[in-house]
């Protein structure tokens, strides 16, 4: 884990920067994180991501991790999944979450929009047939509600069905009873989410990430859960303090 200043080789970074749009500094930070996650290997495996402690509480953890190993997200027109990814692929996936530039033309905005929505679409369309079927959609909602215990499962179905019906009615208009709505195509997906300003919302702040601190913390507490527990405790004590005031 070299210091931030000693960037490995400039040309390689320049190459990556052109490809993904990240600045050198951002690439440096992400590279450090990559090395940390992969335990100084050149490639990253699913297990490396699976063991991130903070991620363990995320209801859609598996889908997020799968997205990193999905060839469709690498900008190479590939399909299927891979077992391990290099730093470049890691960066390419991350670049989907890059904030947009200040001055965009409408076309650029539309391109970015499609790109980001495509990423989401691919997360839902697990079998890569170009449509999100009812089964797939149900799976998404189930995953979303998977943290809410047993009661989530059945309701999830209801919600997914209602959502699917909505998509069908918005995109198809009238349907004969014997017609069958195959699933959400990407065009329909764009249509139903047109009110979500995805280009302004699907962003992560990549600068100002102080991973160095995190590394120290990680070394000090080998299992990062203690950190999580610590913050939880802090919040809890805040609450009791609040009630004490009452």
């Amino acid at each position, binding site marked *: 884990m070299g210091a931030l200043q000693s960037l490995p080789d400039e040309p390689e970074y320049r190459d990556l920067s052109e490809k993904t749009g990240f600045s050198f500094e951002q690439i440096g930070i992400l590279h450090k994180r990559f090395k940390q996650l992969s335990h100084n290997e050149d490639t990253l495996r699913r297990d490396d991501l699976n063991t991130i402690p903070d991620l363990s509480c995320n209801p859609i953890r598996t889908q997020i991790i799968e997205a990193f190993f999905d060839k469709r997200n690498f900008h190479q027109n590939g399909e299927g999944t891979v077992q391990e990814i290099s730093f470049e692929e890691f960066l390419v996936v991350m670049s989907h979450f890059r904030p947009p530039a200040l001055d965009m033309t409408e076309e650029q905005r539309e391109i970015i929009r499609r790109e980001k929505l495509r990423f989401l679409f691919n997360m839902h369309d697990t079998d890569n047939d170009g449509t999100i079927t009812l089964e797939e959609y149900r799976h998404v909602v189930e995953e979303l509600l998977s943290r*809410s215990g047993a009661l989530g499962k059945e309701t999830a179905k*209801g919600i997914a069905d209602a959502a699917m019906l909505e998509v*069908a009615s918005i995109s198809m208009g*009238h349907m004969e009873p014997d017609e069958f709505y195959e699933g959400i195509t990407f065009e329909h997906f764009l249509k139903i989410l047109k009110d979500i300003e995805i280009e302004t919302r699907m962003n992560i702040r990549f600068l100002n990430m102080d991973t160095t601190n*995190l590394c120290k913390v990680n070394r000090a507490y080998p299992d990062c859960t203690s950190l999580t527990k610590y913050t939880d405790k802090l919040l809890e004590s805040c609450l009791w303090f*609040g009630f004490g*005031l009452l």
Partner: protein
Amino acid sequence: TPSKPPGTECDGRDYPLALHSPTGSRSFLERGLLLLVMLIFLEGTVLTLGAASSPDISAQDNTGGGHDRRDDHRGIAGSHEHTNYTYTKKAFPVLSLDYHHIQVPFEISLWVLLASLMKLGFHLIPRLSSIVPESCLLIVVGLLVGGLIKLAGEEVPPVLDSNLFFLCLLPPIILDAGYFLPIRPFMENIGTILMFAVVGTLWNAFFVGGLLYAVCQIEGTYLSQVELLPCLLFGSIISAVDPVAVLAVFEEIHINELLHILVFGESLLNDAVTVVLYHLFEEYSGAGEVTPMDVVLGVICFLIVSLGGIAVGAIYGILAAFTSRFTSHTRVIEPLFVFVYSYMAYLSAEMFHLSGIMALIACGAVMRPYVEANISHKSHTTVKYFLKMWSSVSETLIFIFLGVATVAGPHAWNWTFVSVTVILCLVSRVIGVVGLTFIINKFRIVKLTTKDQFIVAYGGLRGAIAFSLGYLLDKDLFPMRTMFLTAIITEIFFTVFVQGMTIKPLVDLLAVKKKQEAKRSINEEIHTQFLDHLLTGIEDICGHYGHHHWKDKLNRFNKKYIKKCLIAGERYKEPQLIAFYHKMEFKQAIELVESGGGVKLPSAMPSQVSMQNIQPKKLPPAVAERALPQFTKGREEEIRKILRSNLQKTRQRLRSYNRHTLVADPFEDGWNDFLLKKQRMIELEKKMSNYLTVPAAPPDSPTMCRARLASDPNAFYNIKASSEGVPTIQVDLASPQSPDSVNMLNEFSKRGATDQGLGQREGATRDEDQGLMMKPSSAGKVEKGEEDGGNKNPGLMRCLSDPGPSNEDEEDEPFLP
């Protein structure tokens, strides 16, 4: 927001408008009378209003000032007693006039009536409201009313009295804003909002104040007596963007959410800065010297005022949420807690000179999610309407009063001062916004464009808060108070009229993004949630503890502990998505009823698509068990109750009126009710059959089917038994799909066997289910109907078999796999 204790009003005795100065003593006399007609908690309101609106009457009979009037009132009170003791001597007065007795409430009502009629009137003239903002029109009305009063030769009442304004008119508007604050965009932009509210307001205050002082020092302006501190005080009063004015104008231009929350959030949060600056400068104007120590104290004071206000608000908010946990038996007073706790929060904050506005905002925002989960749907509607009603009446009154106060005068017009003020305000606002955005944009993910900056700068309207603060100034300490007030009024008029009227065309001209009117769809909700988790996940992978990470933490903490404490029953377990889904179902169920059986659904998307269109062809065998969670039971009951009360409106009116419950409890009515229900059932079935047999009829919104489905009573009551009794729900009522009637009959007879077994235990509950039009429930009814000798099967069959294309493939398809 500072407000004076009532007694200090006497300071302005030599001020022409302060004729009402001895209100303190007068109100004590009047209190006795008022107690008879007023509720205790309204007392404060009434007395302050009385203080404000009384003089125009008292001015008729006396111009001599306080002492005479006090005597006069004693006289009135005395004459009362006199009549009491001596009425035997006179003939008993059959009809007597005692205006003073009702004067105060009567005048309040008159003003409110005027305001409401004006609001009503503007919307009857279609063109007018699209060109001129309502706030402008109302000010004009106020000017006219004030002019009329003056023409009539009477003193114009000081209607925009600071006490009245800060204690009665402002809180409803702020509470409305706080309670319905869009938390998500607010929190996402909190950094920018705070920057504008704190740094921006400070900048404006010092820029305007400082430069005004510089201008005042120029020879020939006759303003050299104005010192620096009063100038700064004036700057701090005039620099704050006013939430009332902003709300009034921005609500009409339908700007996009980001800009709206930026300007509006700024106007709410700058209150703390204004309060502190105001008190600081007011204090030091007397002392004269400002040391660095004072500056430090000012900063500390700011922190205490803002954070203290938030803390007070949050405490009351939590109390309100906690109280609402236990109101399930006294639903009628539920909404009251929301209002009373909020008002208490405001008053408590004002008591310590903390920021009352911030307290109200915090209170409303904190209590809302929990209160909403606890109170009934009707109470929620009540809260919503009351808040909207109060805030809109308050707003109307404020603008009218602004106009009246302008006429009331006195004015000291100084061209230099006024014009410099207006120009400086504009310039400092523009510089402030552009400068701050330059800094903020370095940290923002979504940058603010030049257009955005323009709208933020141009939307900085000033309003009645500034006027009331100016009005509070001590005449003795600030001899230039009149000039300040004139300048403030001019600035308010300039911003409200010029900027308020031109902002709409400018927004159109610049093609600034507008707000989407469409309501949230379930897909959007799903994806909002999905995005939240996705971004949190990506942040965690990056190893970056950012915004999303902490939000996620807080959410989980909220779910784990706070909701458990503050939300009654099992509802606290309900994830947001499920809650949203239920809300949507609920809304649509009501829409269906209100639209009279669903012939014309007011849904945005009249859909021709039904469930079968999206079902995969091959389905797993019928799902026997649909163990929908128990917790929805209460919810469903609520839906049913509302539906029922809607369906039996006419009947309800005949029932005995109960002051403490809104819906007559169906259990109380016993046998009669059962008969009534049967009758209703027949009607329902007629409606249903109508609905289903009219070929072009079923424009059923997609989720409607779900609503019906989820409220399927079997899902809750027959969890096990339904596996045999109702193996699958075979028909989608909303689809023109025809089921095989014979099949259905078989089903019913099969079901009958189990139904008997299920027996009486369910009888009572089943009876309650008729509010909703669900097939299984009506099937259950058929059984009952037969037992009662009723003959409803044909009706039901008619209802279920409608002329639609039959599709054998999907015959066995369950409605919900």
